[in-house]
């Protein structure tokens, strides 16, 4: 099993370790609820070094990426980050990704589960002059998330981050090493993601931990935090059988672009919607889980793709696909919880509305 550069820190902190797509990762240090609440109320630090990073360079990198991704690359300026996705010709989602634009190159951040698939897909389609360099094995990634993250991070970096806007990044030089500080995240809170080489990321982790006022957080609360925001998780809520329209990713799908792989299928999906990814909360005490059936007036209308007890709302919440027409907020549905019908209501996302991401 692969280890991130921060593996030894997790072991020293007595984290509970689990396998996550080939990586030995911390799922929790003390308690999912405690770690979740730290991110909502103060600050938490995550090791997400398992994520993959590709550097794309070459004169045609921009036009190539615009063809490979569903969002509009041409709207990006150097220093911008963009949430996007890659689709097959049939509209099925290959992966959801982050694109970072530098002066002369791009960085793509991909899910660990899809790294090889993405790399091969990009290479199959690239023009000769585009160079794709997989730097995942040399790159560490820390997410620092929560309303206190700005104050904590400012103590350990040289650049002024007070003006850093949502979904932008800066480069910093710390002890002679290049570090990327991006105001991005997966929690709905004010937060930053820091990319650096292994040695630097280890020092960074220690420096941040020494400031106090935060706790280490595992993948367990990363999942509950993202669910409360209705952020999709690849493999649960989106995959090769779902298209971005039904997944609620129409906002990053720029069908106005002249061409990208999957455009025709996405246009069709826009005109003939068959199902939607919805967010629902339980109105009875119950916890929905992946795979449970969703019911409307005794008819099966879909299934749960992600579910948990929400630590912030203290009730069961879930995401799932339902037939078009049954998807509207306010619709009362049922969830088949191991043979027992429990009541739920479709809500307008996010579940948690006090997030500080835009502070």
């Amino acid at each position, binding site marked *: 099993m692969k280890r991130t550069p921060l593996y030894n820190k997790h072991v020293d902190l007595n984290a509970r370790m689990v396998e996550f797509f080939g990586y030995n990762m911390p799922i929790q240090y003390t308690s*999912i609820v405690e770690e979740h609440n730290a991110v909502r109320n103060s600050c938490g630090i995550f090791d997400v070094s398992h994520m993959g990073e590709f550097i794309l360079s070459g004169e045609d990198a921009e036009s190539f990426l615009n063809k490979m991704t569903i969002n509009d690359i041409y709207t990006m300026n150097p220093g911008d980050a963009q949430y996007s996705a890659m689709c097959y010709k049939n509209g099925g989602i290959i992966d959801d990704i982050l694109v970072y634009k530098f002066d002369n190159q791009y960085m793509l951040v991909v899910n660990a589960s899809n790294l090889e698939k993405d790399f091969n897909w990009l290479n199959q389609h690239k023009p000769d002059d585009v160079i794709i360099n997989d730097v995942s094995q040399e790159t560490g990634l820390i997410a620092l998330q929560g309303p206190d993250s700005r104050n904590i991070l400012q103590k350990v970096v040289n650049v002024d981050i007070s003006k850093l806007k949502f979904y932008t990044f800066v480069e910093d030089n710390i002890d002679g090493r290049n570090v990327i500080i991006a105001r991005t995240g997966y929690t709905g809170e004010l937060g930053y993601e820091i990319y650096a080489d292994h040695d630097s990321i280890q020092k960074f982790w220690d420096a941040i931990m020494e400031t106090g006022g935060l706790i280490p957080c595992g993948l367990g609360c990363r999942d509950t935090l993202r669910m409360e925001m209705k952020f999709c998780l690849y493999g649960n809520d989106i995959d090769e059988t779902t298209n971005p329209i039904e997944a609620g990713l129409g906002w990053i799908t720029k069908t106005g672009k002249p061409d990208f792989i999957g455009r025709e299928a996405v246009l069709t999906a826009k005109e003939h919607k068959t199902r939607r990814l919805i967010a629902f909360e339980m109105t009875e005490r119950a*916890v929905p889980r992946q795979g449970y059936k969703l019911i409307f007036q005794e008819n099966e209308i879909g299934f749960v793709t992600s579910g*948990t*007890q929400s*630590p912030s709302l203290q009730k069961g919440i879930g995401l799932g696909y339902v037939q078009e027409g049954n998807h509207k907020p306010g619709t009362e549905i049922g969830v088949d919880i*191991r043979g027992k019908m429990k009541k739920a209501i479709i809500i307008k996302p996010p579940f948690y509305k006090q997030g500080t991401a835009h502070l």
Partner: protein
Amino acid sequence: MNVPSDLKYTRDHEWVAIKDGIAAIGITDFAQGELGDIVFVEFPEVGDSFEAGEPFGTIEAVKTVADLNAPVSGKILEINEDLDNDPSKVNSDPYGDGWIVKVKLSKSHEQDELMDATSYEELIG
């Protein structure tokens, strides 16, 4: 890992304390650690009867859900209603305030099939 020597155990990681034909039942320290933050316990009704091995309730944690299987046959005498207000007692005090149900035994010989603390410690290694 806390495994009190005066209790009996099952392979499903439940503990049983038997006194005067009545069994108090809960989940072990190991089990609560594996489940993580417990959200609620779904109890049977007082008066319900179960055969040993039959599911009598469920325990929901943030990350997962587990069946509660009857370690012994009998009738439910009492459920720990305090857990409705504070299910985290199962995490913080699994052998004390975190008890789940009390059962009147219907088959006295079954208790001989339960594990003692030494065997249970071997099971969880």
